[in-house]
């Protein structure tokens, strides 16, 4: 296997990890997308905690 190669400058002669057109289009919004995902994650966390830990006792 080849060793890790550090290319000093961005050079198209090397197989660098360029973004695909879709990734390049989405990249500016990535921070907002991540924040949205965290919001959904937090909502689901509290929703499921309520469903499994709190609701069974409220409706007992």
């Amino acid at each position, binding site marked *: 296997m080849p060793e*890790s190669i*550090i290319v*000093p400058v961005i050079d198209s002669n090397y*197989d660098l990890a360029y973004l695909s057109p879709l990734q390049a289009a989405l990249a500016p919004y990535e921070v907002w997308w991540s924040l949205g995902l965290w919001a959904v*994650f937090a909502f*689901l966390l509290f929703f499921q905690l309520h469903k499994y830990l709190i609701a069974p006792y409220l409706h007992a």
Partner: protein
Amino acid sequence: MNLEKLKHWYDHVFSVEEVYASKVLKAALGALLFAYFLTFNVWISEYRFTIEAVKEGVHLCWPYAQNCGDWYFLSGLPFGYTANIFYMFLFALMGWSAWSMLVGKWRTAHALMWPLFIWKTVMVLWLSMTQVGNYEYYHLVFSAILLALPHKLFFLKFSVVWFYFLSVAAKIHPSWTLGLYFSSLKTGLPILPDALMPVWTNAVIFMEMVAAWWLLGPKSKWQRIVFIFFVFFHLYSGLLVNYRYPATVLPMLFILFGPWYTQTAIPKGWKTAFGWILMGLLAVGQSISHLIPGDEKSTLEGNFYGLYMFEANHQCREEAVIYRTDQDPETRVKGSFQARNRCDAYRVWFKYQQLCKLDPSVERIAVKFDHSINGNPFYRTVDLPNICAVDYKPFSRNAWIKTDKDGAELQGYPMRNYYY
């Protein structure tokens, strides 16, 4: 206490009656045992668990138990037989447990798995950091539930969904939100086209964060669809991670959510506390890396206390200059082109700390460490004149590990790399 009373006490304390009454739990116990065979098949020849490894300084301790090597007692081939004797003893226990399952002696099968569970827990969580595969975390949690906890069926099912859900906390990062992990690979994702990479990776995030909960619902069309998705997901992931991960998770997924599935009512009462505490501990472990300032994908601080599958594509280059008394400096250079080699600064630190301790002629070791994640530039994250002189804090920020945000210098750009 006579034998009958002891059996009754055992059944009661570890809720083994639940196993007697459920073909699902019996099958789950079999799946659990299968994963112990897989584990110890590797460990019997794991050099890094031996006292020889400690003498050589090639073992690896957790950051919260940095002197774990003091407790090693097994000697492996070609230096001794104790490791092989020990693991063949465990093999005998596993064989006995498997036979007990076959003849329907479920208490015996259950009891024989305790030594396996205790040894694996001690090794994975205390004596070695080399076995931090996420499948080991799954296996230990399944084991704890099946061996010790009440409401086994509910918590087994819940833990599978909880693992999927928590794993998303490691995926909300450009590695997955943009799919940079896989687009940085020369080979991309297996089968799926690279042009739509963010579509595939965000679909996984959606399924693990949202749809996984439908696994616990009534046996409906949606429950079936999500079950089938995760079966194919694990088979697909095996294209990258090989057999070990799917062999631990897929049998349990199939047993708990497959053809035998029926919805399990949410349990109530004080006995549920043990299961919820275990689920809470998993959440705490998952949150540690997020509570430590800095990009944990780059610093890797706290990264291994929770699930971290495919958290970032790593490349690194390490240069150490070892200064010894009355000798010319020795330079060691090492690079990694392997996406899943985590390039953890802690591992570099631990390795050279052992050298500092074992070799009295070492005066100091200067280390430079360049790290790239997800095809982003290499940054000099570690640049120390003497790595022997710094400590590593297990639960907080280590200022000597830099990121681009706190002044790490850009060294250059990485080529696309490989996963193997």
